[in-house]
């Protein structure tokens, strides 16, 4: 396969919401290209008309009874937030 370009890595970083340093980006480019190269052999397997497997238990949409359950303790949940204001979790501005 063609080696990944720095632009490819930057695009994936955007999709994944992960900031990399310049050194990390270049290392990632080289390593991903190498790993993806090992996957090329998959294209030699004939899969015409083969159904994909998502998981192995052969169950589809599983429903449970719609019964009220006790919720998690609000204080215990909120205590984990890096930034909170009373009963709210604070986030940075969503719009610039």
């Amino acid at each position, binding site marked *: 396969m063609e080696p990944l370009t720095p632009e490819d890595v930057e695009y994936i970083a955007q999709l994944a*919401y992960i900031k990399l340093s310049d050194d990390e980006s270049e290392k990632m480019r080289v*390593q991903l290209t190498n790993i993806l190269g090992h996957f090329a052999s998959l*294209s030699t397997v004939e899969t015409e008309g083969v159904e*994909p497997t998502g998981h*192995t238990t052969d169950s589809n949409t599983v429903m*449970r009874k719609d019964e009220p359950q006790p919720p*998690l303790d609000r204080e*215990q949940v909120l205590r*984990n937030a890096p930034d909170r204001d009373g009963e709210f979790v604070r*986030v940075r501005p969503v719009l610039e």
Partner: protein
Amino acid sequence: MTTQSASSDLYFSTARQLRSKFDAREISSVEATRLTLERISTLEPYLNSFITVTPERAIADAEIADQRLRGAGQEPTSLTGVPVLVKDNFSTKDVETTAASKILKGYVPPYDGTVVRNLKDAGAVILGKGNLDEFAMGSSNESSAFGPVHNPWDTERVPGGSSGGAAAAVAAGECFIGFGSDTGGSIRQPASLCGVVGMKPTYGLVSRFGLLAFGSSLDQIGPITRTVADCADALNVISSLDHRDSTSVAAPFADFGQDIDSGIAGMSIGVPKEYLVGGMEPGVRSAFEASLKVLEDLGANISEVSLPLTDHALAVYYIIAPSEASANLSRYDGVKYGLGSLEESTSAQATEAVRGEGFGDEVKRRIFLGTYALSAGYYDAYYKKAQQVRTLIRREFTDAFLKYDALVTPTSPSVAFKIGDKTEDPFQMYMNDVCTIPVNIAGLPAISVPGGMSEGLPVGLQFIGPQFGDTTVIRAAAAFEHTTGWHNNHPLI
């Protein structure tokens, strides 16, 4: 350090032996728990098996267990009063849960996962949280943000991974059972490298609710123990049908150990030739060949079988697992728990900064790999293709199990390697899982048992069964263990 003494008799007891000692009033759970906590304090500077130890909780749980063992309250179970470890990717109410990642530092879950709940209901004494590769991504425990775990057989070597803390702790006598998770070999490979028993049951038999998700279609919780009998007992406790996990299924048998004493005379066992890969160490290969001879002497019919798609299993796994991981790990956004960023001017920048800072190299690599495989233009070539080959690999196993009761392979192509030896080349590290990965792809049960020594280090033997053939692999492993006695070897630590 002690090698042969009354206390080392205790540390290296099986869970069953310990339970008998409770019943015979030779020792109480509180005494056993205190001695085990002392052992942990002594060994942790050398091993680093635990991320968190919870002595006060353990003693309190042991006191309650002792009352239960003396007849108060519920009937005791096989694990009542037995000190155990759970991997630090199990959600534990009121006890920090990190998945060995900086991004979760300080996270205290408000709930127990189902397996933790089942262990508490059974009266097991939880000593603390086991070290692991960050988010269970690794084969050596070197990607932990809390430092590597050291193999008790040689502390310059890795214990395997990702459940390396659990395996090292069981091997060294820091706990009686360790509970881990296995996405591509993360229970069986460290069990192999540390000379203990490890089993991944059939996908769906153990609830994943409260297991910090990595590859949801592959992840399965299981035990690491000193004997196959303890493994069956532990699975009986943790396996349950759980409506909180939509892939949970009820076991079609009542007892994982129901056939444990049946022997293997007449059992048909296949040896998949593709598993004996070129890179396999000579010592591992010769131990494997000696093990096949043992199985034949026990009356099993051994013959070679070909599973040609095995050669593609690694590629299938390293597309599917990172793809699922990239979706599962999108929840770590620095808003609700763990590491946060108050400096950035927008929410998106804060998320990017937190994830860049909080995730280690291997986790980032897998998120990038998965994000790429799922992205527009590459989805069909990578993710869909891998899922189609997954179907073919399952069919290949299904066909093999028309002829064989079980398959047998080495668990790992090598014994424990030196810390730092494989960290430079990620793909070389991925090759450690070549014998264990196909099992997760197909959702099958498999167990690793001690199967000999090479250069003074343990070698593991893996039995693979058909879907829901858990009792069969336990039966085969027990017969092998009973004859060879490899499980009686302990590290001199």
